């Protein structure tokens, strides 16, 4: 500090001059020599009553030199010092004083704002803004039109994010004239608003007005250009900024970002540009090692960069460790990410590195290699840089970026809890930071917090509405929440933005496939996800983050789902092709096995339909076998290649199984060789079947689905061996046990079925499905007690009190046990209660509605029952065949035969492939009631052809024959026409019925089926036998009568014939005569041309009369009944055989009498004398009157249980099958996620 003459012009020569009060001298203070204690300066300024701008200059100078405290100290001193007392010292230049004060207050306000915006602590920040506001208010009080204060206020609001208010002040500040800071402020506001064009214009204006402005204005301009896509202009701006200030960190970073953004991926250019960029950022780092933005950019760079290690690795495919050559020393620790060669990345195993061997976390899937280059990622450096950045900034956005970078590192190395904490912090620091929100969403998804994750993703989309990853992930989450439509709209949007998002196509397909109506859309969506036309995708279309391996698994799961969809649509062949694709995906665990493995392992999968899993391997020998021989000769010994059970092939076609190892050039096979060509020995190369694909934990659900397809196509062998292979690998795969059980059951192997179900139960004793299958099996065998126990057990399971299937089954069990009259009421009530129980929970359950209908019918309220059945049929006719039958039963009971017949026939066609014995019985019954005996018998014959051991069918057939015969014999009495052939057949029928009844009366019940009694009363059979036999005698008379009738008819016929012939002859004669007469007449005319017309008439008249007389002659001989009777030929018969007819009708009366007792009556009243299969009627409630009907056909109990319910089981099982499939589908979907 020194004294010097006052010189206002010398301001910028590195010293500040304080005018000495009352003198022309000044005190000079060199800015380089500012006192370390600012109070020294304050003392001088106070003493000299220095102008306010001098105070400000000192303060600013201190600030410039980094002493913000001094800046504040000096300014606060003068503000506090200004009291009404002291102000008078400045009264001489009031205006300068006011301007000075405003500037000081604004400087203090700006400082407070800056401090506040750096604060991470909320209350400190608020304090800062409060202080700033009080300074600005003070400034306003002095002059509320000050541009400076306007700008200060703009900045104040800008920093608090109140862009609109900020904009208001900036605009006002520069309304009158150009205001440089206000222009920049407004540019910043526009930039923040995303109005880059306006911002760019404002920056341009600022530069035009003030070309000497600082580099940072040009950085702002550059950023606007960048945002507007004017990359080269942006680059020019950054370059200019760096020319002005080579150390402007923002310009350096901006320029680096531009360099990176213009680098097209993968090119040489990219490498160069990336290097340039990192050099630029490094320079920025050198300039300001604490610039957080720079640090973050560097951290980001290292996050992505693979840095080569000074070592190589030799490793075999499929191995998890390799030999290191070179120096690794402490470069790596367990868990570090490494890349081997160009494509395979994994983490280092926790075993670490012992100097020579490097352990990996996963198997090496690339081809074996020697001295492969090793790379790693320097995540520690990333964390270090980001942490330093975090410490050196107060800007929450930049802190958030630092947190985000650290979170990425933890995310990538699998430390998800730490990653989540950091993502969370980043989100809090800067809620509008989409990347952090997305990372947070990923973490939340990972821990299953779906709703918070969706919130995070919505936050991402609020900032960047078209972010594809967020759209897809949100779609997936919506799908998880069963929000189908929102999910689909997200996928749709993402795919509009980028049709190459294969994972979005696949996720969309997974949602679509849930609705059968969208199966075709789902299919095409899958195929798009997998590449055009279903070609195997190369994996390049998968978004980053999906490694090649998980991509392969996704594709595998997708192919499996495609297969299932094809299957549902009915394209079995396409389904099979899809499975082929699925299995050919190079997923881990599905690979070729080498010989050492397969020679020992049992080949479980051998069926031709499973050729995906095995292949023929040629053995180093040829083989020959003589036709009809079971011994195969080999050209050379093939020691150890075969053993018992090995599938072998000789030449092109002969496939058989070795019975043991080859010995002395020979081995035995299971079946004889088929004929060779022309009896020559079969000869050719020898093959054996070896594994191609093994069932593993990874592909097990695929294998299961394929097995289901096989089952559907009838390839049961293929399906069964796949299920068994699944279970060998996965003994807890319950669904495979169940399918094996179901297949065994459906091929009649009840014991085997029970065995499989029990095994399933051992694996999962609490699985209600298994218990239900076992109960169902008991029901099929009419083992009601054990069945009941099983279903009761299900109801006791937690949460299954109201299980529909179990309740329904129990209802059916009670309904099937109404035999015992003492428990009838009770059982019927129980059945009704169980059906009600189901409807309580599921009022659309057609099965239980059907059950209730049966109860109603059983109680005799047929109209109600009919209503119920009719409604059930409307709703579920496609799945529930029973309801057709039940409805038909009701129609039958109401004597609406045609309706009943039509329903039974439809049902047979629709549900039973035309061959359900009990349905045949019902249909026969309906025909019987309708007196269509021929149809009735034909139906019974078809049923017997299918089930010849069904005694009830035989009994009904006998009864139908008897009744038909009686009906034919009674025709006469009823005045109906009948033929000789009919009577002959009737006698045949009576004979047949006699034999059948005689046989039936001695038949024993077939006890093996759990049947205790015959389906009919043996004593009734005996009575029928006698009745039929007796009637054969009487029928013989009918036959004679009929024959006689036939003879008489023959006679009449002959007589007619003769008469006809005679008449024809006479006519001929007459014609001849007339012709002659006419000739005569003509001659007479010629001779006597004047013959009178009258005489001609007379002649003609005489001719007509003559004809009439001639014609009546033949009938005339038979009494006086006149010619009118001759037209119907009946009278002769009637008159001629009156006596015989009387005798016959007596017989008929006898016959009818007996027939009434035994069965004919049944034709007229089914309720009283049910000739028809009583059981069916019992089904629907007519049986209450059946006690007194002695001729009941015996209840076909199994049929009864079956009619109402068996189908139900079938349908339910189908549903269970479907459930299996959907379960697996779900599984594969989960796998793919």
């Amino acid at each position, binding site marked *: 500090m020194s004294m010097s003459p006052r010189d206002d012009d010398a301001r910028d020569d590195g010293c500040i001059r304080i005018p000495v009060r009352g003198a022309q001298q000044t005190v000079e203070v060199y800015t380089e020599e500012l006192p370390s204690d600012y109070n020294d300066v304050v003392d001088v300024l106070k003493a000299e009553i220095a102008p306010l701008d001098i105070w400000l200059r000192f303060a600013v100078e201190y600030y410039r030199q980094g002493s913000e405290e001094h800046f504040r100290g000096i300014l606060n001193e003068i503000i506090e010092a200004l009291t009404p007392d002291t102000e008078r010292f400045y009264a001489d230049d009031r205006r300068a004083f006011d301007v000075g004060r405003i500037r000081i207050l604004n400087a203090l306000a700006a400082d407070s704002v800056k401090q506040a915006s750096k604060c991470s602590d909320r209350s400190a920040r608020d304090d800062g803004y409060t202080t700033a506001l009080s300074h600005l208010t003070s400034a306003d009080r002095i002059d509320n039109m000050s541009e400076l204060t306007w700008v200060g206020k703009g900045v104040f609001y800008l920093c608090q994010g109140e862009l609109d208010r900020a904009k208001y002040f900036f605009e006002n500040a520069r309304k009158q004239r150009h205001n440089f800071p206000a222009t920049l402020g407004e540019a910043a506001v526009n930039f923040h608003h995303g109005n880059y064009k306006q911002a760019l214009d404002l920056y341009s204006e600022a530069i035009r007005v003030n070309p000497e402005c600082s580099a940072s204005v040009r950085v702002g301009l550059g950023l606007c250009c960048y945002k507007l896509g004017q990359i080269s202009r942006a680059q020019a701006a950054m370059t200019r900024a760096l020319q002005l200030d080579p150390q402007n960190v923002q310009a350096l970073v901006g320029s680096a970002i531009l360099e990176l953004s213009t680098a097209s991926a993968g090119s040489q250019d990219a490498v160069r540009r990336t290097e340039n960029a990192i050099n630029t950022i490094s320079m920025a780092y050198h300039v300001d090692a604490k610039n957080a933005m720079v640090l973050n950019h560097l951290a980001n760079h290292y996050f992505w960069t693979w840095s080569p290690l000074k070592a190589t690795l030799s490793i075999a495919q499929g191995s998890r460790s390799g030999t290191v050559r070179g120096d690794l020393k402490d470069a790596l620790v367990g868990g570090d990410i490494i890349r081997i060669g160009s494509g395979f990345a994994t983490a280092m195993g926790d075993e670490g590195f012992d100097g020579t061997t490097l352990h990996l976390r996963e198997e090496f899937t690339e081809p074996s290699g020697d001295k492969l280059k090793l790379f790693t990622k320097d995540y520690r450096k990333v964390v270090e840089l980001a942490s330093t950045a975090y410490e050196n900034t107060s800007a929450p956005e930049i802190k958030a970026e630092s947190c985000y970078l650290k979170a990425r590192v933890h995310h990538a190395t699998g430390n998800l809890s730490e990653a989540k904490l950091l993502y969370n912090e980043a989100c809090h620091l800067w809620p509008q930071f989409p990347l952090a929100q997305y990372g947070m969403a990923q973490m939340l998804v990972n821990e299953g917090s779906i709703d918070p994750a969706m919130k995070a993703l919505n936050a991402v989309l609020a900032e960047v509405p078209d972010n594809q990853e967020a759209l897809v992930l949100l779609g997936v989450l919506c799908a998880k929440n069963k929000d189908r439509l929102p999910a689909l709209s997200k996928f749709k949007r993402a795919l509009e933005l980028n049709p190459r998002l294969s994972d979005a196509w696949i996720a969309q397909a997974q949602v679509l496939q849930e609705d059968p109506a969208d199966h075709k859309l789902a299919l095409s969506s899958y195929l798009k996800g997998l590449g055009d036309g279903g070609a195997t995708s190369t994996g390049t279309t998968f978004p980053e983050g999906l490694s090649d391996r998980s991509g392969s698994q996704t594709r595998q799961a997708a192919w499996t789902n495609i297969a299932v969809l094809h299957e549902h649509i009915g394209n079995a062949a396409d389904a099979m092709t899809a499975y082929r694709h699925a299995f050919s995906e190079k997923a881990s665990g599905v690979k070729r096995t080498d010989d050492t493995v397969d020679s020992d392992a049992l080949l479980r999968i051998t069926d*031709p339909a499973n050729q995906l899993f095995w292949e023929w391997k040629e053995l180093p020998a040829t083989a020959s076998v003589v036709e*009809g021989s079971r011994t195969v000769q080999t050209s050379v010994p093939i020691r150890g290649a075969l053993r018992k059970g090995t599938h072998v092939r000789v030449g092109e*076609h*002969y*496939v*058989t199984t070795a019975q043991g190892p080859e010995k002395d050039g020979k081995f035995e096979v*299971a*079946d*004889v*060789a*088929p*004929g060779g060509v022309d009896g020559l020995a079969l000869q050719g190369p020898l093959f054996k079947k070896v594994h191609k694909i093994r069932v593993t934990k990874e592909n097990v659900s695929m294998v299961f689905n394929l097995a289901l397809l096989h089952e*559907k*196509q*009838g*390839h*049961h*062998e*293929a399906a069964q061996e796949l299920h068994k292979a699944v279970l060998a690998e996965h003994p807890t795969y319950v669904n495979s046990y169940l399918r094996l059980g179901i297949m065994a059951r*459906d*091929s*009649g*192997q*009840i014991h085997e079925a029970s065995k499989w179900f029990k095994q399933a139960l051992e694996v999962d004793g609490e699985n209600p499905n298994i218990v239900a299958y076992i109960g169902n099996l008991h029901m099929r065998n009419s083992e009601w007690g054990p069945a009941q126990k099983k279903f009761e057990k299900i109801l006791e399971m937690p949460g299954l009190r109201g299980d529909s299937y179990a309740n329904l089954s129990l209802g059916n069990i009670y309904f099937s046990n109404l035999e015992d009259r003492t428990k009838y009421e009770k059982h019927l009530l129980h059945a009704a209660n169980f059906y009600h129980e189901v409807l309580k929970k599921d009022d659309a359950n057609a099965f239980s509605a059907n059950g209730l209908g049966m109860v109603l019918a059983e109680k005799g309220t047929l109209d109600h029952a009919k209503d119920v059945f009719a409604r059930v049929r409307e709703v579920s006719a496609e799945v529930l065949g029973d309801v057709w039958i039940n409805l038909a039963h009701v129609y039958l009971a109401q004597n609406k035969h045609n309706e009943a017949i039509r329903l039974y026939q439809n049902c047979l066609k629709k549900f039973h*492939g*035309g*061959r359900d014995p009990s349905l045949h019985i019902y249909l026969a019954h309906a025909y019987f009631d309708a007196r269509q005996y021929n149809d009735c*018998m*034909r139906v019974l*014959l*078809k049923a*017997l*052809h299918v089930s*010849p*051991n069904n005694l009830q069918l*035989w009994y009904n057939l006998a009864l139908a024959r008897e009744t038909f015969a009686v009906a034919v014999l009674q025709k006469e009495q009823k005045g109906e026409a009948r033929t000789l052939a009919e009577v002959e*057949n009737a006698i*045949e*029928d009576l004979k*047949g019925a006699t*034999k*059948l009844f*005689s*046989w039936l009366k001695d038949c024993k019940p*077939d006890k*093996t089926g759990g049947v205790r009694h015959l389906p009919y009363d043996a004593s009734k059979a005996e009575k029928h036998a006698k009745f039929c036999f007796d009637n054969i005698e009487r029928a013989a008379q009918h036959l004679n009568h009929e024959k006689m009738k036939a003879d008489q008819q023959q006679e009449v016929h002959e007589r007619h014939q003769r008469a006809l012939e005679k008449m024809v002859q006479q006519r001929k004669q007459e014609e001849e005569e007339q012709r002659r007469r006419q000739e005569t007449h003509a001659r007479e005319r010629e001779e006597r041309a004047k013959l009178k017309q009258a005489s001609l008439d007379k002649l003609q008249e005489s001719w007509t009369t003559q004809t009439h007389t001639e014609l009546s002659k033949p009938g005339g001989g038979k009494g006086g009944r006149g010619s009118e009777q001759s037209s119907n030929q009946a009278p002769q018969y009637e008159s001629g055989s009156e006596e015989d007819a009387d005798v016959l009708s007596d017989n008929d009366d006898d016959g009818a009498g007996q027939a009434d007792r035994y069965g004919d009556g049944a034709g007229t009243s089914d309720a009283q004398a049910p000739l028809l299969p009583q059981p069916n009627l019992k089904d629907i409630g007519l049986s209450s009157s059946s006690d007194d009907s002695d001729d009941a056909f015996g209840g076909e109990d199994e049929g009864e249980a079956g009619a109402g319910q068996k189908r139900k089981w079938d349908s339910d099982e189908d549903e269970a099958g479907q459930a299996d499939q959907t379960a697996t589908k779900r599984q594969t979907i989960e796998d793919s996620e």
Partner: protein
Amino acid sequence: MYRATHRSENAHEEGIWSVAWTEADNILSGSVDERARVWCSELAPVHSLNGHRLGVLSVRAFNHGKEAVSSSIDSCIRFWDLESGEQTAVEEPGPVEAWTLAVSTDDKLLASGTQKGSVNLWALDGHKKVASMETRDKFVMSVAFSPDNKYLASGGLDGLVNIFDVEQAKLHQKLEGHAMPIRSLCFSADGSLLFTASDDMRVNVYDVKNTSLVASFTGHTSWVLSVDCCPDGRHFATGGSDQTVKIWDMAAKECVHTFDSAHNNQVWSVAYSPAGDKLVSGCDDGVLQVFEKAA
């Protein structure tokens, strides 16, 4: 490969239950419409064999090709002269004492299963019943003679297979594997293998000598109703409730062809021509279809 050639849409008014191909190159068919019919190999009608009262279960030709025998549900066995189409004899062994038929390859014996589970044997010379061979089964659905007539195999309702020694009229061995009705069975041309078609949707193949199950073929999606072995010793054909006819390769042990559009209903019966180059199938909708081996 085989292809569908001749076809008769309304060969019968109702379902055809049985077909056979005679040495004289005639096709025989029997139907629930109570008739048997004789056709030439191009399916031109030759004779209608009338007389059965109830449906015709089974129709078999004698090996000399001039006669045939048929059975119906009322257990009537009728003998026919194929040249004249006349019935030559009728036998009525009593209710359910005859079901489907088999004629021995030397035309000396006729066999049929019964309701009691036994197999009846008749001498064709004089139509005398010569034996009733017992099984413990419920109902014998199908019978077949081995080519050398040494053995007779029967298939039961319970899925059991019995092989009888014909000369001694005694049970020779039992074969297990099915648990549902066996509606058809046949021996391979050389007699070494027995093929059984069952409602369990399988065709089992047994080695007759070793009494072992050699193979079990699946592929039908419903009951297998009929099986016939091709005289070439390599193939066999099946017909099923799933409305298909399938051709199988015994040596390669797989299905080589499926005809799934020839029929619209259950295929009750298939039969090869004596030369093995043709196959006929009879269906529940009354259609007869001939398949021929393509050159």
